[in-house]
């Protein structure tokens, strides 16, 4: 076909020219950049409105330049040339600190304003005791049959959470005879002060996680010591907190959720096996530089930018004037909605994915389900809103706009995405591993539990977090289910009305006609929403990268 002719043309290709290829290449680059640049311009515009960096004085910039920017650049360049891995470890450590601080803000909001410490403690105990029973039973699994263990475990959970005869008795009209363990704990007349209960729940949880992590890295004994140390640090922070201007409860939460895990990771990365202490040095330079800069700015009295995103904006509720308006109830509402969505969509989605990948036979029905899940992932969110309104509010008679209805609707919305991404993760587990497990005589259940799920778990988690990132920005379904435009305090129960960050931004931009809201509160709300979204996505990306490295 492609034979050369006298005129330098190749049949079927036309004239040979480099220009066409070059033009095509640049067109492709333009196509790539168009969307990114447009979005970047928009974001810069919004961020400029919200943070107003130009309102800060030159003194403020100079101070931070010398305390933060210069040391960061110098130390960063040095560390990077010495040891690339150390540099990325340092960067990661800073990211971890920032994200975990944001996360601790969320947890703090929950324990301060949503769940009273006693209730949290009672439920933590009410879950921990039967869980311990279950663990003991599982240890003795060779002596007790599965059915007995199942019945005993369910009974332990039921007694602990509901008592006798519990909701079943309520339905049959029987009076409560034995109070549940949860009720019992809540009725104890003398209880520890709030921060101790918070320390027990949050600090205990964080200590357990740290202990498990260290036990995995070193051995069980170091794990135990690390957990105890972590718990002691959390408790100690409540005593130290008041001296640095923090109330005991927030001090415990910040320490347990942000500082303890970050320092555990820092310790491991710097002093563990093949650790890189200079990476820690880089992270310390950045954090220290920021702190020194803040202190210096305070001491010299340099005014920072008059940002609309400030502490007042994050902690106050809506107000008639844009300057005093805040996002607090919406932030809390979003957190509660996301917790509900995660609690509903994660087990359902992962369960469906495991079934479809590991158990489902390859027949017409499975393929039909397959196609429908893919289609459902593309259904517009407003349709899910209608579905939520129809099913939960009209048909099931729930009241409109509550945490439960909103969470359930958003969970339905992201369920197909969770299923698809979980299936992706499960499918990427090499079938050699499965075959090897079967070859050792493991059953299908043992293979799924011990081989497939642990291997696929980071991928599943990544997909779920990205899906939650979609849910947190959804506005249309919440409008459809009748979520209120303005609320003034956090919801305290599953059936109280809830607002969310995107909904609040929408209400400000549409219902409050004054220019003030449009130029102050709206950009500030958008920036907070994006910050939360980016934090969630960064967690997902880090998980995925780790997963790809090890797997």
């Amino acid at each position, binding site marked *: 076909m492609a034979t050369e002719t006298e005129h330098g043309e190749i049949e079927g290709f036309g004239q040979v020219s480099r220009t066409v290829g070059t033009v095509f290449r640049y067109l492709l680059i333009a196509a790539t950049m168009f969307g990114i640049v447009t979005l970047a311009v928009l974001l810069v515009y919004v961020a400029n409105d919200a943070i107003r960096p130009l309102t800060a004085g030159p003194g403020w910039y100079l101070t931070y330049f010398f305390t933060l920017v210069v040391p960061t650049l110098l130390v960063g360049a040095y560390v990077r040339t010495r040891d690339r891995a150390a540099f990325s470890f340092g960067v990661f450590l800073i990211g971890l600190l920032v994200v975990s601080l944001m996360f601790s803000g969320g947890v703090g909001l929950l324990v301060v304003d949503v769940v009273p410490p006693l209730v949290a403690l009672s439920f933590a105990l009410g879950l921990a005791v039967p869980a311990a029973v279950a663990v003991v039973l599982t240890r003795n699994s060779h002596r007790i049959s599965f059915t007995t263990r199942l019945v005993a475990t369910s009974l332990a959970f039921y007694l602990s959470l509901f008592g006798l005869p519990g909701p079943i008795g309520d339905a049959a009209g029987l009076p409560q005879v034995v109070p549940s363990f949860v009720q019992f704990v809540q009725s104890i007349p003398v209880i520890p002060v709030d921060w101790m209960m918070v320390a027990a729940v949050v600090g205990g949880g964080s200590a357990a996680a740290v202990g498990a992590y260290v036990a995995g890295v070193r051995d069980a004994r170091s794990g135990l010591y690390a957990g105890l140390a972590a718990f002691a640090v959390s408790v100690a922070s409540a005593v130290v907190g008041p001296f640095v201007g923090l109330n005991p409860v927030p001090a415990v939460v910040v320490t347990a959720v942000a500082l303890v895990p970050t320092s555990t990771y820092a310790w491991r990365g710097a002093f563990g096996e093949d650790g890189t202490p200079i990476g820690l040095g880089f992270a310390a330079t950045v954090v220290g530089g920021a702190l020194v800069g803040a202190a210096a700015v305070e001491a010299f009295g340099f005014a920072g930018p008059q940002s609309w995103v400030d502490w007042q904006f994050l902690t106050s509720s809506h107000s*008639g004037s844009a300057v005093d308006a805040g996002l607090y109830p919406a932030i809390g509402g979003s957190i509660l909605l996301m917790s509900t969505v995660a609690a509903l969509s994660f087990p359902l989605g992962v369960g469906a994915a495991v079934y479809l990948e590991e158990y489902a036979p390859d027949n017409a029905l499975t393929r039909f389900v397959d196609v429908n899940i893919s289609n459902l992932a593309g259904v517009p969110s407003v349709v899910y809103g209608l579905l939520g309104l129809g099913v939960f509010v009209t048909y099931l008679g729930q009241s409109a706009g509550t945490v439960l209805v909103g969470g359930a609707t958003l969970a339905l919305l992201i369920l197909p995405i969770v299923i698809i991404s979980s299936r992706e993760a499960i499918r990427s587990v090499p079938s050699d591993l499965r075959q090897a497990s079967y070859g050792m005589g493991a059953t299908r259940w043992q293979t799924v539990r011990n081989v497939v799920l642990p291997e696929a778990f980071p991928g599943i988690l990544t997909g779920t977090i990205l899906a939650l990132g979609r849910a947190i920005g959804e506005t249309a379904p919440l409008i459809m289910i009748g979520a*209120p435009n303005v609320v003034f305090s956090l919801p305290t129960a599953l059936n109280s009305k809830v607002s969310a960050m995107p909904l609040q931004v929408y209400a400000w931009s549409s*219902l409050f006609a004054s220019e003030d809201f449009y130029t102050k509160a709206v950009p500030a709300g958008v920036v907070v929403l994006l910050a939360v979204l980016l934090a969630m996505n960064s967690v997902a990306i880090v998980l995925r990268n780790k997963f790809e490295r090890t797997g």
Partner: protein
Amino acid sequence: MTRQSKRSSVSRRKFLLASGGLGVAGLAGCTQQNTGGDSTAEPTSGGDESGSDGTDSGSQALSGDIAIAGSSTVFPLATAMSQRFQETHSDVNVSLQSTGSGGGFANYFCTGQTDFNNASRPIQPEEEDQCSGNDVEPVELKVATDALTVIVNNDNDWIGEGLTVEELKQIWSADSSPETWADINSEWPDEPFELYGPSDASGTYDYFHEAILGEETSHRQDYSPTEQDRTIIQGVTGSKYAMGYLGFAYYSENQDSVQAVSVKDGEGDYVEPSLETALSGDYTPLSRPLFTYPKVSALQEAHIEAFTRFWIENATSREIVAEEVGYVPLSEDEQQAMLTRIDDAVDGSN
């Protein structure tokens, strides 16, 4: 080796004893009375009342949810009132939703979802039927007076002093539905209208319909209807030949972006919309009362009754109603009448 371990075990016992003693002492100092406040379990008699904190001494703290929906015109007023109420009663959770008067009655209030429905027109008979069908009994409370405002673009220089009711009727009527300004008055530009207004779920729409067009004439439907008053402002700002109408509060926040049209009723003068002309009664026929409708069963709950009284007690406040929101406050007499109505509603079904 053995000696070392012996010594360390002694010191460990001492350490355990000392730390245990300290711990017990510390724990004893760090306890509080369980007031059993808002646990999920049934209220457990609140421990003993001589509790140490004393947070719940004095007047009993109000707590509970209040759900408000309805008119977008009343929404800013309801928001301002709830915000103030919330400052003193932080345990009461008020949620507000702007659905339009009719939308609020039909979808939220009369189905029993909400405790209050705001309305920028009185409740209609069919809505009362729907409510009573669901055992919802509304109480009509007037909360302010509004001057419904017709707005045009700042560059509109041809309407002169203002518009007559007759002209407004021609512009907005479905029967004539003129295409261009010149269809109304041949001296005006021969350019098509761009009309913005509230949707038919809105009380503002109902009131305008009744006051300007009357029962027989229907409101034209080829305009841009919206429940977001900001959209009306933006639409009118964006086009020289646009016209729209909305509640006075939204106009008063955007006085630089659009101009309000003075309205002449019958043989009177052109009267510009303002709080003064609405209060004096000169601004006819577009000055109108604004309402909120609590339901009688909700008023039996202490926190909702307190909120209702709080609202009416502050409904005469010039600072909140006029300066912050932009409506005409109630007179003292009207306030007394409304308070009596609340009393009757609270006692009536006891």
